Each structure stands twice: as C-alpha cells, then as structure tokens.
C-alpha cells in the first residue's frame, strides 16, 4: 500500500514537473507534429512509396498529440512571453477563437486516425485536410520572430 501511494505521488510529481514549463511542452508537441508530417510528406510528393504502416503511425502520433492539447494547461495566462515562444498575444485576446481551432484539429486528427488513408490518392486528401489545420491556426495565433 505504501509503495502504491509512493508510486502515485511520484507519478503526480512527474506530471507536475512535466507541466511546469508549458512553453517547452507545447513546443515539444509541435515538433512532434512536424515529425509526423515529415513521415507523410515524402509519400504525398512521390519521393517515397505509399506505406500504410507509416501512415498509421504518423496519424496516431498526430492524434495523440492533438488530444493532449489542453489549452488551459499549455497556454496559461502569462505565457505569451518568456522563453522563445512564438505564441501570438491574440491567443489570449481571442481564447474562444483559439479553442475553436484546437477543437477542429482534434476532430480532424481523430477522424483521420479512425479511417487512415488506404492509398496515395486518399493520403493526399487526408494530408491536405490535416495540413490546413496547421496554417489555419498559425495564420492568426503565431508570430514569426527572427
């Protein structure tokens, strides 16, 4: 019993520690999304043959990352500055608009992993649909910095 409590506390601590730096956490998520996109893009461009397993792996990663996004935890007030964040202040000016973009990404990622592309044509459509989410959110809610 004591061991169990210890384990739970340790886990809880680890959880808190992992969330202590929301800027680093959200950046890690975005990097991981980029990697997943990087697994799909060479197929879409015809540089690599279509591989259903790789497609599923990439979509799974994207979906897991998407569902992990909790706006309140990853974008708490005050994290528009600090670190090398490129989050736009518009996130906090228009929280409901930002949340709507995130909800759409979650829904699109879940739909994609539930019905992964079975061939190249389907992948092109799926990749395009998911990719719209990236630019669609970065258009308003990210600031390009030097």
């Amino acid at each position, binding site marked *: 019993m004591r061991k169990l409590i210890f384990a739970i506390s340790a886990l809880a601590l680890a959880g808190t520690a992992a969330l202590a730096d929301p800027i680093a956490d959200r950046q890690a998520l975005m990097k991981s999304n980029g990697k997943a*996109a990087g697994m799909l893009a060479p197929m879409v461009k015809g540089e690599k043959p279509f591989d259903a397993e790789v497609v599923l792996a990439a979509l799974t990663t994207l979906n897991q990352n998407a569902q992990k996004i909790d706006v309140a935890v990853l974008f708490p007030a005050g994290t528009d500055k600090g670190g090398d964040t490129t989050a736009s202040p518009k996130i906090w000016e228009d929280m409901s608009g930002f949340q709507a973009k995130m909800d759409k990404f979650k829904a699109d990622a879940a739909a994609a992993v539930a019905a992964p592309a079975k061939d190249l044509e389907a992948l092109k459509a799926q990749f395009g649909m998911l990719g719209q989410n990236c630019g669609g959110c970065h258009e308003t809610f990210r600031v*390009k910095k030097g």
Partner: protein
Amino acid sequence: MGLIRKIAVATIALGGVGAAVLWFLSAPSRLDTAAMAAIGAGDTTRGERIFWAGGCTSCHARPKSEGPARLELAGGLELKTPFGTFVAPNISPHNEDGIGTWTVDDFANAMMRGVSPDGRHYYPAFPYPSYTRMKPEDVADLYAFMKTLPPVEGRQPGHRLGFPFNIRRGIGLWKLLYLSDQPVVAVGDTAPENARAGQYLVEGPGHCGECHTPRQFTGGLKKNQWLAGAVAAEGDGIVPNITSGEGGIGDWSESDIASYLETGFTPDFDSVGGAMVAVQRNMARLSPEDRAAIAAYLKAVPPHPNGYPARRPEASKN
C-alpha cells in the same frame, strides 16, 4: 527697398516657384491611352492566373472569409502601419460601391500608375510599386477576370492617417523617388531560363518584395536589401529573409521552395503562418511551372543577411 525686404520678397518668390515646381512634380501621371487601347479586351482564363499570382483576395476579400466568399472583394481588411491605418476598399465589379464602371484604362492606371479614375494618387499600401512592372496585357487579362467576380454592395470607410501622410498630393513626390517599372535585380546569365519568368512573377504581380524587403522611414523599399526580410509593417514579428544570405533560405532547394508554396510546409515541416497563409493558398493555385519559376528566381537573387534586427532575448516573467 531695404535689404531685408529684398530678401523677404526673394524668399517668397522662390518659395512660390518651389511650391509651383512641387505641385507640378507631384501631379498624377497617367498611362499612354493609345498604348492601352492597342491591347484590347483581356482573357478571363489568363486573368485568373494573374489574379492568384497577385493575391488580390488576400487584402480585398472580407477579413476571415473562406471558400467562395474569398472571391467577393468587398474589402474591409485594416492594415495598421506606422503611417496610420489603411482600409482595403471594395474592388468588386459593383457599379456604385466597387469598380464596376471602370474602363480597362482606369484599371491599368490604378494598377500601374497608382492613379484613380478621378485623377488622385493611391497610397502605396496598394502595391502598385510592384504592379507597375506588369505587362499591360496581363493587367487587361486581370481586368477581364475581375469582371466575372460577384458584385458586392457596400463601401468601406476611408483610411485613418495622421499629418502629413493624409496629404495625397505628397505621394506624387514619393512616386518620383520610388516608382520604377524597371527590374529590381539583375538575374545573372548563369541562372536557369525560368528564373526570368520567376522574376516577373515575384517583382511584378506577386509583389513579394512589399513585405519581404525592409523599408526606409519614408516607406520606400531598401532595394539594396531586396527580399532580405523585414520587421512586419503591421502587427508583431518579422517577415523572413527569402534570399540565400545568412538567416535566409540558402539551404532550401528549388523543389523545397516550390513545395512550400504548394503545401505550406517548410523543409523541416514547420507550417506556413501569419499573412503568408493567405499568400500560400493563392500560390497553390498557380501551375507547378510558375511555382518552379519563382523558386528558380529566389535562388538567383543576390544573397543578403537578415534585413531585420536580431531577436532580443525576452525578459523572464519572474
């Protein structure tokens, strides 16, 4: 007549001459009507290509509109700049509120000379300093295409500018300094053939330099830092360096650039953001040949280090 009086009279006379010269120099100058008349009616299919290359809809569609509404050029986007706030006007073919009654000649003068049908200067927030490099036949084709778009009712409010920028006549002097229909850079002989086609798209209709090149305090582009990136004229942040200089895109291949313009993903799978999102959506509608030409030109322009200051580390919140 005393000496002081003589000087005063001379000063006033000179001032008068100076004012007259400035007034003369700042007069809006129109295109040669005969030259435009020779071009005749434009072609809507060719015009659509110019429409996407030019990105008219990025500023002139209603802000945040999507899908087919991007073709309703009702205006309304606000550009908040150091000179004041510019409001994109209605350029749909509506007879009262848009440009429905304009002739092709009116349209060409707006695009290539920055002059309105009633003979006033436009502010260069409308990127005619780039469009002035366009071929008149492309302008005529664009005119024909824009005639096919839905007319939209409603005018936009005027720009909100402080003194002295609210004096339109002053733009005439600005044009003397900065308006040129000549190519910006020399594309070397070693550059591939399509780099010249790309030069036309980038320096002309695409007006890439309007955001990607730093400006002087007068608002004129620093052409010796062409495409070197700049502090964003409106909003926060920067517009990236798209030359091959330090901080730029020297490590992108031509195919990387073309692919970015088509899909919105950088070679390391970051995504397009900010105002470039709307631009990239337009670029995705061009032909692969046009995107490849743009890429070839960007690889051929003189490399420059970043045209914006290095990022300062932000103060910690603690």
